[in-house]
């Protein structure tokens, strides 16, 4: 990876532009000056002192937006730092990443939220902290949400710790209305989940691993939807994984409820069948589900029930994965592979068009957390990626920029490779 300052003027010629703002795909040249788009159109003339780069055969899309990542800093720097997470993000084409608050200390004070912004300033991407709903993520006392929002918290979540108490969830939803920010609750009924380590189904039966039923997620999604409706609050449902949950969200949206939901690339690409390998890299929370669930998630993306794709990038040091399945930590890294997985598993089989896929990775997630995205207009900040949607490559360790390597996708053949990222007046060559 090579990170340079953008030249004063640079002209990208003959790219295919996937523009989710205008919802169209077109051929154009883009002229940048001082990090901004000076002009965009066909056959732009080459001025003096302009660096010219031909992008024939390549595609430009806005910098991708991830509204669900774990960057581990402060506290777990052996697994990831904001700097290493930023590199992983760039490698995958992400220029805006929202990080979850389950750090040590967790993001439940203004100081910790400011710390994230300060660390992120040193990187070529934007990082937006999601603050905790409750102090210490213990589910007992609300954080000072108004003040957290004032210093830039974009949402509230105790991610990893589902809010079990309905009363606390109600209070959080109501109080967060003061901030206009959504509540993101990891939807799992921990009591029903019990000691479940994977989806409860025929595969868990055959592997002898304790099962975590789909209902553990669905009951919580139902509770949260109804509480949010009752309190007129903004709810965002993370990492939806079951067909039942998709249906509950669909019904809520049909009733007109202002709810949003995301799905991860791994739930879209893998099922519990993969766990026959006992590969702890595929131990995730919520767990990988069945093929029928996977199909329902795809249908949910297609009809708008699910608004966005988010990585749930969850780095863990290798030692916590190379152990028995019960002790292994939950989660996999995802920033480097998200775009390629979506292209390979959803666009190539024609479940989604390229434009739909890009929307689900840019404008849609940005809208959920009210992040401003520069568009392809004259005067806008240059913030886009250059990729080859048709380049096949094998994902290997050298493609990982995260400090952690916990991914089950190593060795997989993928299409779609990020070549360059333009962000914050930087030109990043991958």
């Amino acid at each position: 990876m090579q990170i340079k300052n953008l030249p004063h003027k640079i002209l990208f010629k003959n790219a295919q532009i996937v523009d989710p703002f205008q919802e169209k795909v077109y051929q154009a040249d883009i002229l940048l000056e001082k990090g901004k788009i000076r002009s965009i159109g066909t056959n732009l003339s080459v001025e003096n002192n302009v660096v010219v780069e031909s992008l024939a055969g390549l595609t430009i899309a806005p910098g991708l937006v991830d509204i669900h990542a774990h960057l581990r800093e402060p506290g777990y720097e052996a697994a990831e730092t904001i700097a290493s997470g930023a590199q992983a993000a760039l490698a995958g084409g992400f220029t805006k990443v929202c990080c979850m608050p389950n750090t040590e200390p967790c993001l439940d004070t203004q100081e910790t939220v400011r710390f994230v912004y300060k660390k992120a300033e040193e990187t070529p991407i934007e990082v937006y902290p999601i603050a905790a709903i409750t102090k210490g993520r213990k589910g007992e006392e609300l954080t000072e949400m108004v003040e957290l929002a004032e210093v830039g918290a974009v949402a509230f979540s105790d991610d990893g710790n589902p809010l079990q108490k309905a009363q606390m969830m109600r209070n959080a939803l109501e109080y967060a209305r003061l901030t206009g920010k959504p509540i993101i609750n990891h939807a799992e009924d921990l009591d029903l989940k019990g000691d479940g380590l994977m989806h409860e189904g025929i595969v868990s039966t055959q592997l002898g691993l304790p099962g975590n039923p789909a209902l553990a997620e669905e009951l919580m999604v139902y509770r949260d939807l109804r509480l949010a409706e009752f309190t007129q609050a903004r709810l965002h449902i993370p990492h939806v994984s079951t067909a039942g949950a998709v249906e509950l969200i669909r019904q809520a949206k049909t009733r007109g409820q202002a709810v949003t939901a995301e799905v991860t690339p791994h739930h879209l690409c893998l099922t519990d069948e993969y766990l026959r390998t006992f590969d702890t890299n595929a131990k995730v929370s919520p767990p990988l589900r069945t093929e029928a669930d996977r199909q329902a998630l795809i249908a949910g993306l297609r009809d708008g029930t699910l608004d966005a794709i988010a990585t749930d990038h969850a780095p863990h040091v290798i030692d916590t994965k190379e152990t028995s399945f019960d002790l292994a930590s939950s989660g996999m890294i995802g920033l480097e592979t998200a775009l390629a997985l979506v292209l390979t598993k959803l666009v190539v089989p024609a479940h989604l068009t390229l434009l739909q896929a890009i929307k689900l990775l840019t404008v849609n997630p940005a809208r959920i957390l009210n992040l401003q995205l520069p568009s392809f207009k004259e005067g806008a900040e240059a913030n886009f990626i250059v990729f080859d949607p048709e380049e096949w490559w094998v994902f290997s360790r050298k493609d990982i920029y995260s400090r952690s390597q916990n991914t089950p996708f190593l060795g997989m053949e993928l299409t779609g490779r990020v070549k360059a990222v333009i962000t914050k007046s930087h030109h990043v060559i991958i």
Partner: protein
Amino acid sequence: MNLSIKHLLGLEGVPREDIEAILKTAFSFREVLERPIKRVPTLQGKTIVNLFFENSTRTRISFELAEKRLSADTVNFSATGSSLAKGESLKDTVRNLFAMKIDAVVMRHAVPGSVKLLAQFVEAVVINAGDGTHEHPTQALLDMMSLQEKFGRLEGLNVAIIGDIRHSRVALSNIYGLRTMGANIVVCGPPTFIPYGIEELGVKVTYSLSEALSFADAINVLRIQKERQGKGLIPSLREYRNVFGITRQRLDAAKKSITILHPGPINRGVEIDTDVADSEHSIILHQVLNGVAVRMAILYLLLGGR
């Protein structure tokens, strides 16, 4: 005789020819065990580690005896709960042991998949002596050997497995092995003990013990773990015995001779009454002897040819 498998991690997917070869070899080792001198030099110079991360008496002794009867050098490593502390890498523990040049490892662990994980870490033959609630292939093989001995066949035999199917590695391995060999299987227990989708493995489910008994030529009675009651899966051991316990009265009501197996250790008066466990229909002690023979056969077939 060569097996198609390199390790014995479970019976899922193990072909019929392999199971037949193991059983046939086991019967010839049974003869060795009846001799005054019960030792053969087959595995002289081979080193086997018995790696038990979970308590076991009978399985560990059975393996140890099988190894000694084959003249292998054996080392025992027991580390339960506390010594393999939470967070410590299984890989580290095991790699340290294997730096010492081991030919085979017999492993028991409380967590499903751990034995498979081990097979990825080491260059040695790996034999699963029970991985949590996943598989216990040598137990199923000795059960099958005992049934073969009693009935002269496995094809078409009706076997009922009774008890906590959901938490039983014995049940799962028996289902795989017996189905491969053409036996018919019914599993029986309260619904809280029947795992999701078990029918997809080619077995029938019944909650009625009398139905299971009227179906069965043989029953495999599973041990009821006493802690299940505390987890709310059954109200009491007393009620369990009243509904699913194997008693003389229930066997008499079936009006036929039913062969009884039990993987041990027995909770007498819970899943099975003492008079039944010790009756002429019980082949529980044959199972124990066959266990040594089957383990000799597996060690011989996986290690001998090398």
